[in-house]
């Protein structure tokens, strides 16, 4: 796969634009999946995919032949997602009404039986998780998604975000702490 990618890149740089189309077809699905995990919005994720491949085409001359195209395009997609998160952060704010109401949730959690109530609770938990993720800074969010959901190492996160490994590690710590603070009351201790 990697070697095929390199051959396609050489063809693109030699003037065969359609060869890039093959790269797009080959990697769009995985880029979309990562983009959605970061943005948690279908339209934003699609925008990230398109923007990432556009930027990738323009930067293709700077692609290091020793690198993996998939990793490289992922990194560009991270930056695009980061831009979207920053834009979203500056445009919207988390409504105060979404804040946690401990008593209400505790009552719901007391009932462990399956059924409509339990389904409702899952939806409630998901809504709280979404709200808690929205409260993270874009860097914390990206670092947490890459670490927790994409299982990327600290070094890979640092490279993707263009920050020092220790900063990446701290971003993951802060993200976990904030999420725990936001979601801990929902947790039913066994």
């Amino acid at each position, binding site marked *: 796969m990697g070697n095929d990618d390199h051959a396609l890149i050489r063809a*693109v*740089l*030699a*003037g*065969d*634009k*359609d060869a*890039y*189309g093959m790269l*797009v*077809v*080959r*990697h*769009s*699905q995985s880029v*979309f*999946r990562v983009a*959605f*995990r970061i943005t*948690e919005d*279908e339209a934003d*994720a699609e925008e990230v*995919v*398109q923007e990432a*491949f*556009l930027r990738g*085409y323009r930067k*293709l*001359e700077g692609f290091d032949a020793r690198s993996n195209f998939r990793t490289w395009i992922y990194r560009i997609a991270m930056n695009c997602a980061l831009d979207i998160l920053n834009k979203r952060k500056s445009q919207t704010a988390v409504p105060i009404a979404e804040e946690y109401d401990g008593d209400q949730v505790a009552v719901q959690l007391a009932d462990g039986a399956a059924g409509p109530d339990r389904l409702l609770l899952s939806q409630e938990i998901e809504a709280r*998780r979404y709200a808690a993720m929205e409260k993270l800074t874009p860097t914390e969010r990206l670092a947490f*998604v890459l*670490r*927790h*959901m994409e299982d990327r*190492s*600290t070094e890979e996160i640092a490279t993707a975000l263009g920050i020092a490994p220790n900063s990446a*590690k701290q971003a*993951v*710590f802060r993200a*976990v*702490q904030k*999420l*725990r603070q936001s*979601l*801990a009351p929902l*947790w039913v*201790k*066994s």
Partner: protein
Amino acid sequence: MKHLTEEELIEHYYSEDFYKAEAEMHLQACKRCAQAYEDLGRFLGSVRAPEAPARDSEYGARVWQAIGGSLQPYQPKKKLGYFRWPQLAYAAACVLFLAGAFLAGRVWEHAHTKPLLASAPQQSKERVVLFVLDNHLDRSERLLVQLNHAGAEEENVDLPLQAEARQLLTDNRLYRQSVAQTNDPLLAAALDHLERVLVEVANSPDELTSADIARIEKEMNTQGLLFQIRVLRTKVSEQQTNAQAFGKGTTL
């Protein structure tokens, strides 16, 4: 016992801690940290990645369709033919050689021309001094020879020795003063000696008799002075020859 911090617990959860074995041992020994780690694990385990909506198999094609139209094809780079490399390398080597030769020439010229130029006036001056001094010593030698011959005769001397001695005396003073500033004690002593003889001859009565000359010869040791003058003339002639040879070399 030092408990694990939350950061250390998170590091351990993601298996990124440097002291994994130590942390594991601590968690086995410390109930408090083990409980905290269990809580953390259950919490993080409950945070699952949102399920991405499925994309159909045509999704990639649609993305390409959306962006492909706005992309300009890359212009293939004009590569230099492989066969040109030897010629280019040869040309580069020639340029380097010429540049090296030019620089070496400049360095050599800088290293050698300057001292020659600086020493040229000094050498010319030295050659002139040697020539004039040689001439002066030649005239002095002839005077002393005449003086010695005259002293051997028993008649009155009818030679213009005094006039010649007066002329030589004036020149000799200048040469003696000049030589006194240089580091040549032999020449300075000879000129000093010669000056005393010339003074004696120049200031003697109008008509020198053989007896007067014999006295001067004896008192002033003119024979010894003549020998000294000849030695010095030889030395000066050699110096003059050397200076001329060097001068020709520098001119070339």
